[in-house]
């Protein structure tokens, strides 16, 4: 690991809308260049988006696959099964677990079945399935809100009129999404950052006001709009529900898959809420959303104003803060969740193993 490898990893991780203008290695030092101050740079670099992978070994050779710098290193990947082994030389020390086998593209029900029969120790639990997992008496750990379900609204084309975007914001029934589709998991929100992080999220009203939406729309009848949603069924269902809400407000909306509609008028997305630093979290979130809004300061007032300014544009409409949840097997001990809701496997151990 050296500075050049880090630069290479950062450039690989960030190809567009980066916090910096350029990054280069000067000896063992990294030099970031930017047109504006970067008070949140350390926090941003600590996020998952900028994880540094070892792309060049100590002898200067480039490995065939990234092997990692954390507690576990990449060993193999075969038929969607990823194998990680403990990194003996990790700066945090060697983890308790010797090996982690991650099986991808496995249906949730199958994961749960594997967990119940002892073929797996940790299984994914989407928020909307959390209630069912609990009904099946699975041990579940739930993170604080780590994702923001938000509706991105294009400010060009048919929705170039901010009043129409405001009408869209007013017509959304967040309660139906929260209560039914996401099975009362997470939190209803109209702010970008969760209440637990800022304390002022309640200041943004999240109630639906269809009359106001119709009033705002006035006599305008926009052309048919396209709402793009990611491919998972729950997001698609939520998008359809939003389309229904919007239809009540006089908007004709068709739901499409995000892959098929890259330039849709509306897009339902899950944005990351990372870290404990609100300013850094907001910047990360906005950059994920493709926004480039500088965050003025770290005090709550400045943060509120910055968030308020962004929301006033009605190009990003927060809907729900969603947690991450995991079902864990009976052998797993000391499993904690990190700030981004992912399990901290380095600290976990299995009962009955050495």
């Amino acid at each position, binding site marked *: 690991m050296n500075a050049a490898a880090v630069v290479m990893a950062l450039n690989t991780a960030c190809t567009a809308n980066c916090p910096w203008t350029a990054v280069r290695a000067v000896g063992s030092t990294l030099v970031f260049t930017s047109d504006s101050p970067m008070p949140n740079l350390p926090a941003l670099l600590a996020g998952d988006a900028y994880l540094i992978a070892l792309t060049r070994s100590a002898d200067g050779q480039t490995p065939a696959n990234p092997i990692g710098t954390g507690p576990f290193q990449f060993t193999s990947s075969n038929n969607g099964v990823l194998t990680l082994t403990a990194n003996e030389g990790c700066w945090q020390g060697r983890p308790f677990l010797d090996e982690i086998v991650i099986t991808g593209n496995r249906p949730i029900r199958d994961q749960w079945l594997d967990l119940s029969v002892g073929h797996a120790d940790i299984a994914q639990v989407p928020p909307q399935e959390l*209630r069912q997992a609990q009904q099946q008496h699975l041990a579940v750990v739930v993170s604080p809100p780590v994702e923001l379900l938000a509706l991105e609204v294009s400010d060009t084309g048919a929705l170039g009129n901010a009043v129409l975007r405001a009408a869209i914001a007013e017509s959304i029934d967040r309660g*139906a999404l929260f*209560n*039914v*589709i996401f*099975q*009362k998991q997470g939190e209803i929100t109209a702010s970008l950052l969760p209440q637990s992080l800022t304390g002022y999220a309640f200041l943004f009203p999240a109630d639906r006001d269809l009359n106001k939406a119709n009033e705002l729309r006035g006599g305008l009848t926009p052309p048919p709009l396209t709402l793009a949603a990611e491919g998972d069924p729950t997001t698609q*269902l*939520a998008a*359809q*529900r939003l*389309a*229904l809400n919007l239809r009540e407000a006089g908007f*004709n909306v*068709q*739901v499409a898959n995000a892959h098929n509609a890259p330039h849709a008028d509306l897009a339902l997305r899950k944005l990351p809420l990372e870290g404990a630093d609100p300013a850094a979290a907001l910047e990360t979130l906005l950059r994920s959303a493709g926004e480039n809004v500088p965050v003025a300061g770290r005090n709550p007032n400045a943060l509120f104003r910055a968030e308020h300014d962004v929301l006033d544009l009605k190009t990003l409409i927060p809907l729900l803060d969603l947690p991450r949840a995991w079902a864990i097997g009976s052998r797993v001990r000391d499993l904690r969740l990190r700030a981004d809701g992912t399990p901290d496997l380095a600290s976990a151990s299995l009962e009955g193993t050495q």
Partner: protein
Amino acid sequence: MSLRQKLLLLFSLTVAAAVAAVAWTVLVRIRHVFEIRDQEETALFVSQFQREFQHRSAEVAAAVDHLAASERARAMAFELAQSGDVAAYLTEAQSMAQDAQLDFLEIVGADGKIVSSAQWPARFGYAEPAAANASTTPFLKREELPDGSTALGLFAVHAVGGTEVRLIGGERLDQSFLADLPVAPGMQIGLYSDANSLTTTVNFSTGASTPALTAFDPPRLLGPSGAVPAAIQYKSLIDAARTSGQQVNGIVNPTGRREDSLNATAIPLKNEQGNVMAVLVVAISRSGMVEAQQHIRAIAYGVAAGGILLAVLCSLWIAARVSRPIEQLAHAAEEVAGGNWDVRVPPRGRDEVSVLARSFNHMTEQLQSQRDRLVQSERVAAWRELARRLAHELKNPLFPLQLTVENLVRALELPEAEFDEVFRESTATLATEIANLKTIIGRFSDFSKMPKPELERIDASEVVWRVALLHFPNLVRKGGRSVEKSTNDEKIQCSVEFSLDPMPLDADPELLHRALSNLVLNAMDAMPDGGVLTISAHPKGETVELRVADTGRGMTPEECERLFTPYYTTKQHGTGLGLAIVQSVVADHAGTIAVESPPGCGATFIITLPRSAA
């Protein structure tokens, strides 16, 4: 057209018309019978199909009923009643619809709002009007789908247990539904479904609103295997069913070929409000019936053609048999008209034609007898006339001869000198009168031995000019068409007119000259007090017309009629042979001669001769 041809045509047409009428009647009757049978068969098939459709409706109702009666649904209804939490059942409808193999299923809570929807999961919480109008019988409903489209479905509603929770299940009326329906061989089915089958037209003056039919859209007519080909052909039928709301029958011809035609029935499918939601088209192929009809028609045409051919042959025989005696009569009549009076028609049988033949034979015998008698009497009359004329002509010179001879006899007693003088005078008189006798005899001789014409190509104008110059030497030719008038003795003026166009004639110039000269002399004789003589020659179609006109006193009709009779004359000293000679010459040149003499306007002789080819 001959009598035989007319009879043949009459008989043939009569028989052909009769055969055609019979064939047409038979074909129309057969067609009528076939169509009635075809309609009955179609009605039977349609009835069977409707029963099958109702059976499928009953199946949908039974499936929903079965679902509503299941323990799963009862438990769900109980939980909903207890907790009111609908979130747990978001995907319940999808699961239940899959189990019951229903295309549509919605769970509607006691508040009339959707708890779960299989076809549109995001519609939870929205009101479902169909639940309020629920009945146990299946009904049609157009269901909105997430992609913005709509689908027509056959629905049934059933309450779960004793609760207010209802299940609204249905089966989609689409291609697969049609494909599952049993169809008889030759039967085609289609479903016309329009998202907005009826639009409402508002009359702003009266405020009344009337439903208006949306335009027929051919791609919306679907069969079990996709779009129905030539769907536009069903337009009138489907529109009639959509408009009237009643079942409509008709014949559809998708390809234009009659054997591909279909006996189609459009069955309107209505919702509970009676609005036509779709039109089910059941079409039965008419190929079997059409082929049978064509087969029968071919046989009928063959028999009719054979009958007509036989009738024509029979007509030919009958016509020949009937017309042969008449043709013989006609031929004999032509022979008689041509001068052959010896012809006879053999009488056959006792019918009217044989009577006619016998009468004809008798008539020709009578005619022949009368002609002979007439010829005999005419011959006698001619001899008498000739004798009279000869006697008259000869008597005039004979009288002086007799007087001269008597003078000579008396002169014997005179002195010698006087006798010599009387003798000289008497001999001179005798010579003169004998010359007169010779002249008279020469004229008769000329008439009796008219030479045969020696034809050569001449121009009519040359003949005319030559004759005119003979009698009027002072004539001066001026210009083309006419000449200056000329007089011979300052009493008669002559005018010659002829066309500049060539007027070729195949004629004997001397005979023609002689004939024209006769006419000119007659004309001059007709104008003792002077007048105008006009000689002209003009082409007239395929003939050349020569005219000699005078301005004398003219002739009476009786004179005109007898003018060309030999030895007839109106002159005091004429022989009556001049015009007879003219007529003979003209006849020898295959021409005709006529005379026109309006009262007091002189006379015009018109000779018409055939014009030779140039």
